[in-house]
């Protein structure tokens, strides 16, 4: 039985598949190796791309993560796709006719390569995220000799991101309740001030967290 219920982060799909149970540091290494390989693939090797896609899809299948869980989270790729869509029209070089439009051949190849590599990379990363709990991921990074300070920063970020997002939501709601509309340029200075307040609040939260850590004997190094 799987599901996004109960404990776990927003990207996680709860389950007990072999992919879920695999040691997290191996999964991190696998995603790293996979992404590097895909990035280095020559863009004409269509069969290799098909094989890579088949590999990710097979892993997702074994993990039992439904594609409808992953699909909305693929939206993170959108900015890249917008850029990719523009590339054939703005790139220089010899032009070819596609569906009655004159597009750059080099741009078309570039767009294909970026699209394929980005999509495969994002899909592999999402699969890792969907099958790995945050604490396991942090331990994996530690085990892979990522510097302790960086692992701690990632840990704090994951822990406090939810609170910051909550803060933003509350402040936004309070603005809406007083007739604020994000569309009106007249209100843009308000957005800037809100971000300032958010920064100060978050900074003060950091101070309080530090104080609470000191109270428990923290001396500047994680035990």
């Amino acid at each position, binding site marked *: 039985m799987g599901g996004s219920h109960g404990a776990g982060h927003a990207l996680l799909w709860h389950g007990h598949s072999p992919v879920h149970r695999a040691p997290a540091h191996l999964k991190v290494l696998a995603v790293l190796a996979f992404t590097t390989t895909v990035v280095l693939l020559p863009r004409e090797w269509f069969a290799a791309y098909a094989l890579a896609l088949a590999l990710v899809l097979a892993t997702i299948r074994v993990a039992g993560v439904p594609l409808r869980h992953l699909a909305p989270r693929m939206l993170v790729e959108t900015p890249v796709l917008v850029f990719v869509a523009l590339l054939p029209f703005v790139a220089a070089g010899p032009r070819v006719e596609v569906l009655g439009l004159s597009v750059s051949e080099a741009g078309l190849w570039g767009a294909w390569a970026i699209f394929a590599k980005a999509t495969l990379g994002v899909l592999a990363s999402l699969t890792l995220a969907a099958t790995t709990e945050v604490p396991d991921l942090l331990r994996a990074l530690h085990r892979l000799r990522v510097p302790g300070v960086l692992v701690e920063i990632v*840990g704090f970020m994951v*822990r406090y991101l939810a609170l910051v997002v909550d803060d933003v939501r509350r402040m936004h709601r309070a603005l809406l309740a007083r007739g604020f509309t994000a569309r009106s340029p007249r209100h843009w200075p308000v957005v800037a001030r809100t971000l300032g307040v958010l920064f100060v609040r978050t900074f003060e939260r950091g101070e309080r967290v530090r*104080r609470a850590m000191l109270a428990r004997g923290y001396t500047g190094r994680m035990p």
Partner: protein
Amino acid sequence: MSVPVLAVRGLAHAYPDGHQALFGVDLEIHAGERVAILGPNGAGKTTLVLHLNGLLEAGAGRVEVSGLPVERAHLPEVRRRVGLVFQDPDDQLFSATVRDDVAFGPANLGLRGAALEERVEEALAAVGMTAYAGRAPHHLSFGQRRRVAIATVLAMRPEVLVLDEPSSNLDPAARRELAAILRDLDVTMLMVTHDLPYALELCPRSVVLSEGTVVADAPTRTVLVDRELMARHRLELPVGFDPALVPVD
């Protein structure tokens, strides 16, 4: 008389911006006592609490914990002896799992392996949160997070537990459950609170702090029935609450 667990003598403090929060506070807490610190907002309650384990340095006067002066050289031992539970559990719980957070304090004391595990188990059991050891703190209810925050401090086996507004933001059921847990803890306790019925229920003795000085130190019921004292220091009981009618053990 035995050495008090907490001894505060002539404590004064002014913040860097010039605002003076404490003007010579004297206070003694003995082993096994449960004492409430009452007072209006801005009375200096939190400032006092931050001095008890050296998070703020005294401008004048001194604080001793079981005879050990709160000074830079003794800070690690002072912070082991005085367990501070902050008002917002989200400030206190920063780890990815409840277990890691409860282990943070004792690990800072140098405990490892089975000894560390034992501390974590013991502290979580004391607040009834054993079943949540593997959960992420931000997925717990507010009441559960407050209980875990208390466990993170209990795991250091403090000589005195200092709680800043333990009942704030709790719904009535969580407030009652926490009272039962606090009453069962076998530890000296100092509790800063605006919740006067809570003070009456849990603390036989109350200290009223107002404008940076101690203005009353007496059995809690005696303080709460003194209308003149209460009014003078902006302390108010909930409408219809009569402290004379509440049975106190």
